[in-house]
């Protein structure tokens, strides 16, 4: 339950940050 609460605490802002990270490819991370 504590982890679920942590997840819900961060979901509002972090979800969008993570989505941006998934959408924008880090070229240096994949050796481009």
């Amino acid at each position, binding site marked *: 339950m*504590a*982890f*679920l*609460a*942590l*997840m*819900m*605490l*961060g*979901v509002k802002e*972090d*979800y*969008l*940050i*993570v*989505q*941006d*990270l*998934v*959408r924008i*490819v*880090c070229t*240096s*991370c*994949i*050796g*481009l």
Partner: protein
Amino acid sequence: MGFIRIFKTGFVCPFLYCYGCPFAAFGCPIGIIQNFVTYGQVPWFAIGSLGVYGTLLGRAFCGWACPFGALHDLLSYFRGDKSFKVRPFWYIKFIMLFIVLGAAWYAMDTVFCKYCPAGSLFGAIFFRLRYPQSLTFNLPFAIHMFTLGLTIVLALLISRFWCRYLCPMGAIAGAFNKVSIVNISLDEKKCKECFVCLETCGMGITKLEDIGSSTDCILCGRCIEACPLKALSFTIKK
């Protein structure tokens, strides 16, 4: 799924992966945590997500869902039963996790991603296959190919080498094995200590009491299949 932009979600997946892959639909937990470290933010969502995954299923995602683990299982078919017997050093992956986070904090960059063999395979290679115009052979790509090649060679010699010793995600998920709701339990009344379960274990677990509870156990269930007396079974804690 991530080949369509709307499927590129902000969820954190429970295994090592690379969101540099053109088809990625979820974030790699290690990549996400590194990024948040560089931003100077606490990754509450990632910590909460990994906590929920771990509390429910422990390290089962490593055994059932991880694509890099699947590569190791595929390589084990080529190796057959000739895996080198090496001692389990469960703490190395925790040292690796500490180094990964420390390097991200020190360099303010996702340092591990530049060397990650899973990123080499799912990010560097798949991206080049999807976008052939980006087909370049430079030093960062050479480093990626070296780490991937080295991991494959070691996986051919030692069963699930990366998962056993170096996977930082395995360290996080493995820490939940003792408290996870889904687990493997041993019926001591049925067990005759033939140790067939330990001989078939791809993660090199050496003690009966470590099955299901060790940070190395990926709950793959090979031991359950191998046990001639059916002394091992998946259990759900209430």
